């Protein structure tokens, strides 16, 4: 274990994790895939609407929302299971509900503050984004370090998350039958709701992303869709937060959509490509992490970035490979076409 990159060992990296069933790495893989999938789906719209950096902003600014939600939930004494007696609600559920609500509020507040600074003063939008999210993030870090005993968020965990702890989380049970770790269930619900939302509002999202003017003319409330997207983005981010942290989630938001946009120009095909990207990057990332013995979420991002560069290389419309081929063929045809003309005029 003395070298930086451990030697490649097929057995240790690929066989061993799965030899004891799926109880550990299965959950991690599932969680990683769900996060990548959900973020990728919503990320497609962020990229189309040029809101990629709003995603950056919201992923940072949910932190104070979560921290305050923690404090409030603690102060209200929301039903937390007492020793011995079985609690009617699973442990941790009130806190995660409070966190989702807090994050939703933080998301909408971020959006409103950015708009407000941008419209009411001469500050440009990018500067307004930068000011808002960094201030909110700083506020969150201060709250966490001041109330470290009440807010169970680790400051380092905020940055890169710890997806490896997923199998250790309390399982959600129906009756006495354990189903899945609570965060996985939460992420699964969010993923299903995201897919449903995209299915239901496909047309509205499509029109308002590409042509706000047409959307307005056909009676679609583009501003509702904008703020709805922001709230939902905060919910997605907060569900993924403790697993992958505030910054890696940006990669998971942008990478699948960006890769897909290199491969296709049609929105539904892009959504399919980004789902495939999510699956591959979580699978490859997990095994990379086992190989290198390092952060799993970070490795998933590394895998996702590599897949992006692969997509760039082979992209039919924008990749260097096809472009070179096309240029060659087009110069050939051009030469062939100009040949008789030059002869005629010589």
């Amino acid at each position, binding site marked *: *274990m*003395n070298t*930086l*990159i451990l030697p490649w060992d097929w057995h240790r990296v690929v066989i061993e994790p799965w030899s004891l069933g799926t109880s550990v790495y299965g959950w991690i893989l599932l969680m990683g895939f769900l996060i990548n999938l959900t973020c990728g789906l919503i990320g497609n719209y962020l*990229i189309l609407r*040029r809101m*990629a*950096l709003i*995603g*950056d902003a919201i992923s940072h600014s949910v932190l104070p929302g979560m921290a305050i939600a923690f404090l409030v939930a603690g102060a209200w004494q929301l039903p937390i299971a007492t020793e011995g007696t079985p609690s009617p609600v699973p442990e941790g559920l009130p806190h995660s509900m409070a966190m989702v609500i807090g994050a939703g509020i933080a998301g909408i507040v971020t959006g409103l503050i950015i708009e407000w*600074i941008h419209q009411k*003063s*001469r500050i*440009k939008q*990018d*500067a307004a*984004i*930068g*000011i808002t999210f*960094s*201030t909110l*993030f*700083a*506020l969150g*870090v201060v709250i966490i*370090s*001041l109330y470290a005993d009440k807010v169970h968020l680790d*400051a380092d965990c905020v*940055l*890169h998350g710890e997806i490896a702890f997923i199998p250790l989380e309390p399982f959600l049970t129906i009756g006495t039958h354990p189903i899945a770790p609570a965060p996985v269930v939460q992420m699964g619900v969010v993923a299903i709701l995201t897919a449903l939302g995209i299915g239901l509002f496909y047309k509205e999202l499509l029109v308002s992303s590409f042509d706000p003017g047409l959307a307005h003319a056909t009676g679609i409330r583009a501003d509702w869709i904008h703020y709805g997207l922001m709230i939902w983005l905060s919910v997605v981010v907060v569900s993924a937060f403790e697993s992958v942290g505030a*910054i*890696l*989630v*940006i*990669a*998971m*938001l*942008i*990478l699948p*959509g*960006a890769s897909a*946009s*290199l491969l296709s120009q049609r929105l539904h095909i892009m959504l399919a490509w980004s789902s495939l990207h999510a699956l591959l990057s979580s699978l490859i990332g997990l095994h990379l*992490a086992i190989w*290198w*013995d*390092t*952060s799993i*979420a*970070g*490795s*998933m*991002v*590394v895998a996702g*970035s590599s897949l*992006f560069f692969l997509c760039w290389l082979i*992209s039919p*419309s*924008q990749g*260097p490979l096809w472009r070179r081929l096309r240029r060659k063929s087009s110069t050939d045809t051009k030469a062939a076409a100009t040949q008789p003309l030059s002869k005629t005029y010589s």
Partner: protein
Amino acid sequence: MNHRGLLKPFNNLWPLVLFWIGTWQARADRIGEMVDISLKDQFIRFASLEDPALRFALAGGVILGILCGMMGTFLVVRKLSLVGDTISHAVLPGVAAGFLWNMEKDPLAILIGATLAGLMGMVLVSQLTRHTRLKEDTALGMILAGFFGVGICLMGMIQRLPTGNKSGMDKFLFGQAAALGWQEIQIMALVGLIALSMIYLFYKELLVSSFDVSFARSIRIPVDWIHHGFMLLLAFAIVISLEAVGVVLVSAMLIIPAATAFLLSDRMHWMLLWACMVGVMAGVGGIFFSFLGQKLPTGPFMVLSAAVLFALALFFAPRHGMLARWWLRRSRTLRIQRENALKAVFHIMEKEAFTKEGVTVIALARSKGQTLKTTEMTCRELERAGLATLSHEEKALYLTPDGMRRAQTIVRNHRLWERYLTDAVNYAPDHVHDDAEEIEHILGEDTVRMLERQLNFVDRDPHGKPIPTIQDIASSGQTQASKGQGMSGYRNPS
């Protein structure tokens, strides 16, 4: 005598009361001290600078504030605010690589590695936006998080290594100014001096290429080289700020002081100065608060101090603050209201061929289509501005010479503009009123004279009404001044 008698029963109690108050005060003092001791002591320790770590931290904070303020100003005016964010995250793999170079926290190796990583990130962003259809924000976000992921992986691997002094690596995430040493301060000061002298030497080139790229190209300023050089400096500045502020919040120290300065000034050199001052104040404030609380990370407090200053500027900046803008807008609206009221008065008087001195408030309300109450308020507003006087029962309104002049000017602006639109721009006469209604409040005297000359001193508007001339306006004051005469300053329609 009487009240002294009243107090008599208390005479015996005085010592007791005094004693009680004394002990109460003493107790309060002690409790106050209990609270104060730590805070006051901390404050004194802060102020006396006897702590060497604190001295280093403060020096670092000051250098950081100046450096980030300067670089950030150029970022903000170039609309590149979030580039700083991307670079600051993208340096993480470089920090790890610099650590791997000789397995300890060598500031120089980390500085070089991190700068290279940041530059590589920026090169990738520009390649991505040039060769693909991805937009800049997507490319920035992707490089930011992708590089950060690589950095996190490398950090994870380093954590596993048994050798080397890993302590302080995690400080790069949130920053701890107290961890700054003499060596770091030296490097910071060096980079700060280099940046300062570069900006001083190439100030003109930077200025021109920040505001007008094509003009800069036309006077043969090597814009691309300036841009690359600036990015290199920026990467250096970000890297040396990392240890004090941390990866996540460096971009805030770049953007917030510069944005504050942007609200406070319109000139680039003043903006640079303001940004440096705000940066230094934020840096020192952040160190102060994190020193008071002990063991608190420095970065977030610096950012919060900067944000407070920004909020102050946002509300109270003399020209671009929200209060100033609100006041400007309000006074403009009030002026337009006054001018519209004056115009309405003038129209009524004109309809009566200037045979009467003033107008009744009821007539004014009828012509403006307002309630009597609103009209009375408008009239009082006019009286307060010295443009008109109200009769005793507030039934009639008389224009003062000033008011008459303003009214004539507005009507003149309106009718001349209508004439201009029909004659010079070929508008239909029934389409010109609304446009003139807007512009009459904005036209200056020079523009109006020019219009008049261009229209050959025309004396009728498109609807056949006379246009007051400059002589009318000048004479209206004098004639009005002498009492008893009718209002004859205006050429009466015969």
